[in-house]
């Protein structure tokens, strides 16, 4: 039997609720704030979350179908790309990272290599200009790039 998406989500959320609850119990709270202090609110929420997730596990929705493999891979790739973008752009510099990530995203959406690279370059230069000139926000250029230039 294939695991219904809702069931899996429910199980993951119960895990999250447990994590939240454990963290809340381990909070070091001065005695004067108890019994209803900073602990009580997240604890109550975690119980609520667990109860709702249990409903989801027991009564999953009907339309939880999985995307086929190729699509699932691309969805994961998008998430991976965005994560990599957030991690890398302070080190590699805004422009090069944007170029690479936007080009890769465009490829995932079915653009040809040429179009993807042009989109990436335009987005990188354009948004860099918008941020630095329009919004007055200094963006990281990337030390390695500065060394070459």
């Amino acid at each position, binding site marked *: 039997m294939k695991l219904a998406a809702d069931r899996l989500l429910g199980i993951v959320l119960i895990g999250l609720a447990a994590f939240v609850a454990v963290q809340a119990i381990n909070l070091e709270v001065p005695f004067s704030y108890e019994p209803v202090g*900073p602990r009580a609110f997240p604890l109550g929420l975690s119980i609520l*979350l667990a109860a709702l997730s249990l409903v989801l596990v027991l009564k999953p929705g009907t339309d939880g179908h999985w*995307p086929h493999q190729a699509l699932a891979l691309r*969805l994961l790739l998008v998430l991976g790309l965005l994560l990599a973008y957030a991690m890398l752009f302070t080190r590699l510099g805004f422009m090069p990272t944007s170029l690479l990530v936007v080009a890769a*995203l465009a490829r995932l959406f079915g653009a040809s290599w040429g179009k993807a690279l042009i989109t990436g370059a335009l987005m990188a230069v354009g948004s860099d200009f918008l941020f630095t000139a*329009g*919004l007055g926000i200094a963006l990281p250029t990337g030390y390695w790039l500065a060394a070459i230039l």
Partner: protein
Amino acid sequence: MFDFLIEGFGVALSPLNLGLAFLGALLGILFGALPGIGPINGIAILMPLAYTLGLPAESALILLAGIYTGAEYGGRMSSILLNVPGDAGAVMTTLDGHPLAKKGLAGPALGLSAVSSFVGATIAIIGLTLFAPLLAEVAVMFGPAEFFALMVFAFSSMAVMMGKDPVKTAIGAVLGVLIATVGVDAGTGVMRYTFGMAELYDGIDFVVMIIGLFAISEILLMLEHAHRKDVDTEMPPLGRVFVSLKEVLYCKGAMGRSGLLGFIIGVLPGTGASVAGAVSYTTEKRLSDKDGTFGHGDMRGLAAPEAANNASAAGSFVPMLTLGIPGSGTTAVLLGALMLYNITPGADAVHRAPRGGRRPDRLVVHR
């Protein structure tokens, strides 16, 4: 009371603000017509721009509200012409809008959509003007207990009204509140869920959270639908350019009823344009579909959801401005915009705004 209203009109009718309203509506129509960019993303994109341009709070609000209503209309173009709803609120518009376009009445359909949007929005704005101060009058007496009850009400009405799966909506609400507990607890100063990371001490910023959430989910949805081919790519002929007065009058009942209905639905927290459109369409169908023309290109079937979803857009400002509870996803982003300006919407803002001294009155609360 009335002199504040007149003063408000004075502010709204200043050339700068009129220009911004026009610009906002124009950009909004563009954003709404483009697939993938709805009112939420449009406002999210322009919010920092409005802020750095140094626009005063009320002008920024005018610009962003213009984008909101403009995008509500722009989303209709693709639903009428191509049978592709530009956003969730436009789904009901396709039911009668696209058949009209197929009959060669695309132009009148677009015109009627604009007229009914205008009528709906006007009804709702009158409602907003009358209703918001009353609500604020009550809300200013709210204490912690009342606010807690209100939040519980908001979350449960969200769970019941939004989407077809109340359990998941409730889970979403709980997750949202949990995210809000990250950081220093305001009451006691205890660190919660910071894991020793200094970046988390201030909590997770509302604006960052909401933009990330909507933008990333939009990318994933677009990717999932990128290769679907059930779309009418053939552009129907436009036909006449504008709607005739007779057709507008034919729909006046539908517009009036749906505008009122849309406003009420918009005021309820958590229910936005999509619910308003659906409810008004089915109501109108029940009331006036005597010969079964709804769904085959009935003008009233187009006017009803159009009036309703614009009315709900304006209606969702009521809880946002008076209680600080966004009535829709877009007002949630607008709430973030107001917070950028150090305005925390709520009863306090509505009350102190016109009364807290003569000069930097309006919306500016504690800058």
